[in-house]
């Protein structure tokens, strides 16, 4: 008896100390674009992508950090302005804090607009008293001459407050201390964070009295059980004790509020008091000297959102990025290509010395090695230049201005202006663009953005386009003009893609996805000086190498597979020739040939391997064994019947065809439906076929 009691006590003690030994769970919340991800990354050493626009964190990420020998878990929750509303992110965040019982809730705030951020702090404090307030972007605040008295803030709120500049690695020690401190001390304050309108308070008290579950925050439950917009069953489900009694109390309270005529204004009453309290607190501990702080940004904004030049500047910026990419990629591409050529000889000799059979030698060298070599030599340099440049632009805060400039066109297409942001993400990778569509609240508009994301060419397709442009359209120009002409052509191709995005969105809005544009708000964040070093390292290692790695992992098996197709013969004709001649009549209709179409089909896993497949297929026809630069490749293509019409059609088809496998899977995941996934394949494919067939037919008619 005594023994079992001892065990029980022991277990209780263990339970008490368990958290200490295992570390604790910290939930990270904050308004969008306040540097939450930077805090998370620096603390946990994870490399979650951060950028200067709202809505980067679209899914939950978790990581760990060690402090005082404890391994603590950190959960990065989606950015939200409030915990009241009913959007997906806000519900996820609210439910996590409310039901998952994290040890500390770290609220990251933008010190430059604390009043707005304070709403979220107060709402979080209504749920839990284990809150640490992190005042991030202190460097910006100081520049704008905003002085915050954090000691006073601490006293007013009754939680730990830490000043930080996460980008400059300032304040992390203090932050870890504050988190540990908040875990250690027992805060039992259950005082009301905000006092609401008297009738509302009476109703809340009534429900609080009916709640007899001592393990919950009664006031918060009362607030949610009264809220007309909240799924109350979630909350009832969590309750221990007499749920019926609570239901009756809630019913009565709502009835009374309705009689008093204030229930229909419920949320407004709540927000009004929250805002008042927020303003109250902020007024007490902030010294503003903000007369001119927006001036510098305003100057930039007046230029980049100018009614006439705004869009032109946008196109010019895009062109400059392309120009740097194209002209900068040439030389490293050539060097890599040469290096791979030399290595090929070495590899080949080595394989001969260890006496592997001829067919294995060929499959490894001519199949796997050559394909992979092409992917690296042709894809790596443009990606390694484009990604950092684009990331700089993103870091600076320019992308939301693109959305601002283009909103009129999206509105005409009855789409959401934020689609411009997901479109921009598509330049990097369409799969990323598709999952980024979560920043669009309306389901109809989100689908529009998902279905049309593929019309902007991703980084897997840029180099293909660039290679074809330099081979066929700029040969007659001398440097530096060839680079400029390439840029102009590439920019026009991209603009065609963007134009198609508008047209197809508009068409879908009038047919399958009928509806009116829904409301949304777009935040234009302050411009921030990009962190050059970090951007370059991050975009090269995280994005470039990641995308390249994925391409190589597809290129290796694809190289072997295509070599087999090109070398296994049936009735003296290779399998490849069988398939390509089967596809040929249809492909000719599109201004392509069987090999090109086959290359696009086999390139389904990754667009990067389309060109190497073409090369290998053509080479197996016996025209050429070696090629060292693009001009020799052009000879190979010309020998296989390419004309400039073929080149145009190939570029168009590259721009407008089915999304790659990764993107398709992402679409399936995001829409949760195969129907939309199939549609997202059909739409660009059909349009691509029509456009190519049109170009081919026109050129034939004109005998070009």
């Amino acid at each position, binding site marked *: 008896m005594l023994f079992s009691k001892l065990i029980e006590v022991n277990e209780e003690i263990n339970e008490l100390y368990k958290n200490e030994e295992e570390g604790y769970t910290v939930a990270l919340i904050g308004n969008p674009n306040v540097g939450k991800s930077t805090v998370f990354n620096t603390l946990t050493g994870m490399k979650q992508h951060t950028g200067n626009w709202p809505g980067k964190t679209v899914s939950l990420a978790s990581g760990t950090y060690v402090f005082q020998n404890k391994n603590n878990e950190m959960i990065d929750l989606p950015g939200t302005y409030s915990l009241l509303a009913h959007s997906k992110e806000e519900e996820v965040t609210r439910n996590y804090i409310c039901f998952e019982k994290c040890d500390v809730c770290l609220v990251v705030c933008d010190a430059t607009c604390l009043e707005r951020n304070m709403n979220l702090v107060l709402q979080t404090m209504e749920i839990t008293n284990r809150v640490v307030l992190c005042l991030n972007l202190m460097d910006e605040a100081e520049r704008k001459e905003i002085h915050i008295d954090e000691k006073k803030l601490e006293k007013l709120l009754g939680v730990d407050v830490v000043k930080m500049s996460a980008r400059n690695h300032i304040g992390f020690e203090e932050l870890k201390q504050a988190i540990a401190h908040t875990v250690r001390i027992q805060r039992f304050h259950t005082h009301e964070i905000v006092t609401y309108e008297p009738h509302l308070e009476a109703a809340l008290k009534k429900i609080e009295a009916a709640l007899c579950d001592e393990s919950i925050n009664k006031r918060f439950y009362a607030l949610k059980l009264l809220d007309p917009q909240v799924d109350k069953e979630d909350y009832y489900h969590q309750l221990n004790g007499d749920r019926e009694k609570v239901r009756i109390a809630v019913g009565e309270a709502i009835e009374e509020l309705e009689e008093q005529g204030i229930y229909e204004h419920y*949320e407004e009453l709540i927000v*009004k008091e929250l805002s008042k309290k927020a303003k109250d607190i902020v007024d007490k501990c902030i010294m503003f000297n903000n007369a001119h702080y927006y001036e510098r940004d305003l100057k930039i904004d007046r230029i980049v959102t100018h009614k006439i030049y705004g869009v032109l500047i946008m196109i010019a910026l895009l062109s400059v990025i392309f120009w740097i990419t194209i002209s900068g990629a040439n030389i490293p591409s050539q060097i890599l290509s040469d290096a791979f050529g030399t290595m090929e000889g070495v590899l080949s000799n080595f394989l001969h010395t260890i006496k592997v059979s001829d067919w294995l030698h060929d499959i490894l060298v001519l199949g796997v090695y050559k394909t992979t070599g092409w992917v690296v030599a042709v894809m790596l340099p443009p990606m390694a230049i484009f990604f950092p440049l684009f990331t700089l632009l993103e870091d600076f805060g320019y992308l939301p201005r693109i959305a601002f400039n283009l909103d009129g066109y999206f509105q005409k297409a009855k789409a959401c202006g934020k689609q411009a942001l997901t479109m921009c993400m598509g330049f990097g990778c369409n799969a990323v663009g598709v999952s980024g569509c979560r920043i669009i609240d309306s389901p109809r508009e989100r689908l529009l953005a998902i279905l049309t994301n593929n019309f902007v060419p991703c980084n897997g397709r840029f180099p293909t386009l660039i290679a074809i442009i330099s081979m066929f359209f700029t040969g007659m120009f001398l440097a530096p003009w060839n680079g400029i002409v390439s840029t102009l052509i590439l920019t026009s191709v991209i603009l065609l893609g963007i134009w198609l995005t508008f047209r197809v969105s508009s068409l879908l809005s009038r047919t399958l996805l009928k509806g009116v544009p829904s409301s949304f708000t777009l935040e*234009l964040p302050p411009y921030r000086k990009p962190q050059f070093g970090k951007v370059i390292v991050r975009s090269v290692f995280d994005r470039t190498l990641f995308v390249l790695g994925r391409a190589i992992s597809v290129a290796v098996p694809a190289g072997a597979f295509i070599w087999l197709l090109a070398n296994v013969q049936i009735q003296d004709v290779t399998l490849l020739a069988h398939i390509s001649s089967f596809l040929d009549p249809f492909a000719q209709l599109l201004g392509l040939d069987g090999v090109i179409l086959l290359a696009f089909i086999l390139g389904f896993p990754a667009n990067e391997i389309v060109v190497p497949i073409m090369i290998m297929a053509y080479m197996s026809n016996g025209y050429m064994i070696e090629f060292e630069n693009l001009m020799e490749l052009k000879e190979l293509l010309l020998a296989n019947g390419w004309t400039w019409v073929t080149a145009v059609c190939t570029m168009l088809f590259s721009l407008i065809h089915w999304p790659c496998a990764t993107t398709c899977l992402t679409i399936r995941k995001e829409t949760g439906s195969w129907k939309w996934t199939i549609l997202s394949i059909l739409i660009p494919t059909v349009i691509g076929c029509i456009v190519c067939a049109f170009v081919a037919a026109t050129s034939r008619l004109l005998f070009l």
Partner: protein
Amino acid sequence: MKTLHDLPIAQEGIIQEVHNPGTIKRRLLDLGILKGSSICPMLENATHDMRAYMIKGALIALRSSESSLIEVEERR
């Protein structure tokens, strides 16, 4: 009564009433767009359908369909 959409650029105003329905009202409330707040239009885009407003230290863009449902009074 003037709506937010009619407020001239750089003219500060005080919000009198927010008529927007449903979900967007919550979002506007979250951003501090509610009765009594001061707001100032800063930028307008080329197609005149969207303007950016300075509200509580942040620059927030709204379409005319939203801003025309918000009543304001010019601050002198």
